[in-house]
C-alpha cells in the first residue's frame, strides 16, 4: 500500500495529538490525581501507536506502546504517579515530537534511538509490578473459586480492608459468537479498566487459545460499584448472559464457604440489543482541514477581485451612468465581505504559539531553580497564519529573558518582601487592525544605570551623552545590535543579547515593540503586530513616472520642506524639523531615477516623514497620489532580496507598482 499520500494527514494529526498531550502532561503535573488526564494521555499514546503502526513508523509505535503499558499501570492504580514518572513522560513527549518533526521534514522516521527511554519506562513499570505479576500467576493457577488458595483469599481480604470490592463475574457468550477468544479478550480489557483481575477460570492462557466452551468466570478487585462495571460489560456485543456476584466480607468466611449465598445477588441480564449511545458534548465546532496552499490561492483570487474593484471604481468615477455606479457600489460591498471572510478562514488562534510556553517556562524554572507562575490570557485571539509563523521566536526570546534575568530567585524575592514565586504574564488581545501581545514579569526590572554604563563601555555613546539621556533613550539602547547588560552571558539568554534581532523580526512583519520597566517592580514588553500581512493600507507616491507604494504603518506624517532649509552634515542632508534634526532621503536618487540638478532654493519639497522605531527620516517624493488598500505580492525568488523593495502590488489599471521597504532605507 502506498501510504505516502497519507503522510501529510498523519503529520497534521500527530501534531494535534502531541499538542493535546503536552497540555495534558502539564495539567497532570499540577493535578497528579486526575484520572481523566491519565486516560487522556493514554488515549493519545494509543492513537499515536495505531497511526504510526499503520504508517510503518515502528519506532514511534514501540515507544508509545511502552508508554501505554506504564500509563495503563497508573490508571489501574498499580503504580503511583510521581515527578519522576511525569519527567519521564515529558521526555517521551520530546522524543515523539522529534520523530514527528523529522518525518515532517524528511518523510522518514530517522535514526535516533530511544532505547534508554523504553528501558526506563520498563524499569519503572517492573519495580512496581514485580510482586503483582507473581501473585496473579499464582491466582490464575487456582482452579476454582471455591478452592481459591489461601493466598488469593488473603489478597481479597486485604483488598476489602482497603475498601475495594471483590466480584466474581460469570460470562456466557452467545452461541453464534464468531471469535470467542477475542470477545473474551475485550471483556478482560474492559474489566481491567475498573480494577485488577486476580483470577479467571479457565486460565487466561486457555481463554487466549480458545480452550473454553461458551462461559468463563473472572474474579476482580475494584473500587467501582457493581452497576458501573455491569453497565460497561453490557456494552460488549455477543454476550448472552452476565452473572455478577459480590464476594462479601472474607474475614467472616471459612475456606470452604467463601460465597455467602444469602448475600448473593444474581444478575441475570439479557444482553440488551440496542447499544446505549454515549452522548458526547460536541463543543468542537464542525471543521474542515484545508491545505494552506488552497487558502493562499483563494486569497490570491480575492486579491484579484479587489484589484478589479479598484479599477471599476476608477472607471465608474468618470462615468455618468447611474446604474453603473450602483453596480460598482454593490461589487465593492461584496468584495469587502468576501475579503473579510477569506481573511477569517486564514485566522488561527494565537494559542498555536502560546501552547509551547508552559512547557518552556516549566523547564526553564526547573533549570534555574526559580519558582515561576505563567499566567496566559487571550490565547483565543486570532491572527493570520503568516503572522503566527513569525511571532514565535521573538516571544521565546522575551520569555527567556524575563525568566533568566528579570525574575529573581525565590530567596532573593523573599528577602525583598515579594512573593516567593515570580509571575510571568503572557497576554494577547486584539486592538483594531492590530494584535497586541504583552510579556510582563514582576522581576527586578532593567537597571538603567547599568545599561548606560555598558553603552559607554562599549563606546556606543559618550559619557557626556549618557549623562543627558532620558529614560526612553536609555531603553532604546537595549535594542542596539550586540548590546548586553548581562555580566555573564548565560546559555539561556542575556538581557539585551539579541533584542535587536527581536526588534528586527517584529518590524519585518510590520509590527513594533515597546518596553516599560520599573526598577524592582518588573518589565513589560508590548508587541503590536498587524492582523495580516497580505493586504495593507499604503500611500501611493510618484517619482517621475514611476508609482511606488509606501506602507501606511510606517508613515508618521506628510509635510513640505523648503529646499533652502536643507543642510549638509557629514555629506548627509538633514533638516531642522520641529527642533529635531531630520535626515533627508531623496527617494529618486536611492531608486536610481535620475533627477536634474536644478536647485531651486524656493522649491517646496513634498516630504513623507517615515518612522522606524524611534528613528525618523524625511523621504522626498515628486507627487502624492493617495491612500489605497493594496495587495502584497512577492517579487518571486529571482528578485527576492532586492534592496529597498519589499514586494509588488497590482494597481487598478493592471500595472505593477513596487512596495518600498522603509525599514531598510535608514
Amino acid at each position: 500500500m502506498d501510504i505516502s499520500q497519507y503522510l501529510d494527514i498523519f503529520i497534521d494529526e500527530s501534531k494535534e495529538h502531541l499538542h493535546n498531550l503536552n497540555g495534558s502532561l502539564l495539567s497532570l503535573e499540577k493535578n497528579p490525581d486526575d484520572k481523566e488526564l491519565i486516560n487522556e494521555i493514554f488515549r493519545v499514546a494509543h492513537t499515536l501507536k495505531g497511526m504510526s503502526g499503520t504508517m510503518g513508523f515502528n519506532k514511534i509505535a514501540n515507544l508509545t506502546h511502552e508508554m501505554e503499558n506504564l500509563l495503563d499501570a497508573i490508571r489501574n492504580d498499580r503504580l503511583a504517579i510521581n515527578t519522576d514518572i511525569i519527567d519521564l513522560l515529558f521526555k517521551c513527549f520530546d522524543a515523539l515530537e522529534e520523530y514527528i518533526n523529522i518525518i515532517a521534514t524528511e518523510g522518514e522516521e530517522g535514526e535516533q534511538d530511544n532505547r534508554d527511554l523504553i528501558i526506563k519506562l520498563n524499569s519503572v513499570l517492573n519495580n512496581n509490578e514485580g510482586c503483582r505479576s507473581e501473585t496473579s500467576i499464582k491466582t490464575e493457577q487456582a482452579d476454582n473459586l471455591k478452592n481459591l488458595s489461601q493466598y488469593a483469599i488473603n489478597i481479597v481480604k486485604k483488598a476489602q480492608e482497603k475498601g475495594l470490592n471483590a466480584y466474581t463475574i460469570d460470562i456466557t457468550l452467545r452461541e453464534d459468537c464468531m471469535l470467542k477468544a477475542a470477545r473474551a479478550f475485550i471483556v478482560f480489557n474492559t474489566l481491567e479498566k475498573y480494577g485488577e483481575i486476580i483470577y479467571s477460570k479457565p486460565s487466561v492462557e486457555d481463554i487466549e487459545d480458545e480452550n473454553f466452551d461458551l462461559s468463563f468466570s473472572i474474579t476482580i478487585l475494584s473500587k467501582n460499584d457493581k452497576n458501573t462495571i455491569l453497565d460497561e460489560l453490557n456494552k460488549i456485543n455477543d454476550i448472552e448472559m452476565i452473572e455478577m456476584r459480590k464476594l462479601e466480607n472474607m474475614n467472616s468466611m471459612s475456606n470452604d464457604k467463601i460465597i455467602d449465598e444469602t448475600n448473593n445477588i444474581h444478575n441475570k441480564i439479557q444482553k440488551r440489543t440496542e447499544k446505549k449511545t454515549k452522548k458526547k458534548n460536541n463543543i468542537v465546532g464542525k471543521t474542515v482541514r484545508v491545505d494552506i496552499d488552497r487558502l493562499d490561492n483563494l486569497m490570491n483570487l480575492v486579491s484579484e477581485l479587489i484589484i478589479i474593484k479598484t479599477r471599476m471604481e476608477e472607471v465608474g468615477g468618470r462615468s455618468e451612468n447611474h446604474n453603473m455606479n450602483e453596480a460598482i457600489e454593490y461589487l465593492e460591498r461584496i468584495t469587502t465581505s468576501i475579503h473579510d471572510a477569506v481573511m477569517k478562514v486564514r485566522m488561527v488562534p494565537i494559542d498555536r504559539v502560546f501552547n509551547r510556553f508552559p512547557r518552556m517556562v516549566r523547564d526553564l524554572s526547573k533549570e534555574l531553580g526559580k519558582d515561576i507562575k505563567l499566567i496566559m490570557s487571550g490565547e483565543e485571539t486570532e491572527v493570520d497564519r503568516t503572522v503566527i509563523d513569525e511571532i514565535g521566536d521573538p516571544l521565546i526570546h522575551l520569555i527567556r529573558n524575563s525568566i533568566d534575568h528579570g525574575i529573581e530567585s525565590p530567596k532573593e524575592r523573599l528577602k525583598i518582601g515579594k512573593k516567593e514565586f515570580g509571575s510571568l504574564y503572557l497576554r494577547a488581545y486584539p486592538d483594531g487592525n492590530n494584535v497586541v501581545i504583552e510579556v510582563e514579569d514582576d522581576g527586578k526590572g532593567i537597571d538603567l544605570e547599568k545599561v548606560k554604563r555598558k553603552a559607554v563601555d562599549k563606546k556606543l555613546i559618550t559619557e557626556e551623552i549618557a549623562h543627558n539621556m532620558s529614560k526612553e533613550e536609555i531603553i532604546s539602547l537595549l535594542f542596539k545590535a550586540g548590546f548586553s547588560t548581562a555580566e555573564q552571558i548565560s546559555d539561556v539568554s542575556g538581557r539585551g543579547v539579541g533584542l535587536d534581532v527581536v526588534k528586527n523580526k517584529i518590524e519585518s512583519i510590520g509590527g513594533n515593540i515597546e518596553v516599560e520597566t520599573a526598577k524592582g517592580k518588573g518589565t513589560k514588553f508590548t508587541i503590536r503586530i498587524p492582523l495580516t500581512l497580505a493586504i495593507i493600507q499604503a500611500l501611493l507616491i510618484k517619482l517621475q513616472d514611476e508609482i511606488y507604494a509606501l506602507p501606511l504603518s510606517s508613515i508618521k506624517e506628510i509635510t513640505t520642506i523648503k529646499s533652502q532649509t536643507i543642510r549638509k552634515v557629514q555629506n548627509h542632508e538633514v533638516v531642522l524639523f520641529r527642533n529635531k534634526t531630520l535626515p533627508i532621503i531623496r527617494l529618486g536618487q536611492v531608486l536610481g531615477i535620475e533627477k536634474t540638478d536644478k536647485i531651486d532654493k524656493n522649491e517646496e519639497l513634498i516630504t513623507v516623514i517615515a518612522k522606524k522605531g524611534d528613528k525618523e527620516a524625511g523621504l522626498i517624493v515628486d507627487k502624492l497620489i493617495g491612500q489605497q488598500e493594496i495587495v502584497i505580492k512577492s517579487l518571486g525568488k529571482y528578485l527576492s532580496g532586492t534592496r529597498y523593495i519589499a514586494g509588488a502590488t497590482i494597481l487598478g489599471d493592471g500595472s505593477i507598482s513596487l512596495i518600498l521597504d522603509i525599514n531598510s532605507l535608514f
Partner: protein
Amino acid sequence: MNSIESVNTNQYVLFKLENESYGIEIEYVKTIEKITNITRVPNTKPYVKGVINLRGEVIPVIDLRERFGLSITDYNNETRVIIVSIKDFVIGLIVDSSSEVIHLNDNEVDNPPTIGETNTVEFIKGIGKKDGNLIMLLNLKKVL
C-alpha cells in the same frame, strides 16, 4: 515513431536573437506572451528589465540580448516574452521573436563548441541541427 525513439526525442521552443536560432526544452516553458508594460525594479542587474503582470502574477523579466551581451534593440511587434519555470523560479525571457516548436533526436544534438567568439557560449549546452540550420540549445540554469 516507436517508444524508444520518443524517449530520446526532445521538444524545443525555438526563438531568435539577432538572426540566430536558440532553443529551450519545452518542459521549462509555461507560455509565450507578447511584450507588455514592464515596471522597472531598481537596484537589480541591468539585464533585469523589471516585472510584468501576467494575469495577476508578478513575474520578473530579463532581456536575453543584454544577458548575452548582444546589441540592444527596441522592442517591436515581433518581440516575445517566453515565460519559463525552473525549480521555484518563474521568469520571463525577452527575445526577438518566437514561433515554432521542433523535435530534435539525440543524434541531431552536438556538444557545444569549445572555442567561441561570443559571450553566449557559456549559456549553451548543445547545438541542434535541423534542416541545415544550427540551433543553440540554452542551459537555462546558467542563464538565470
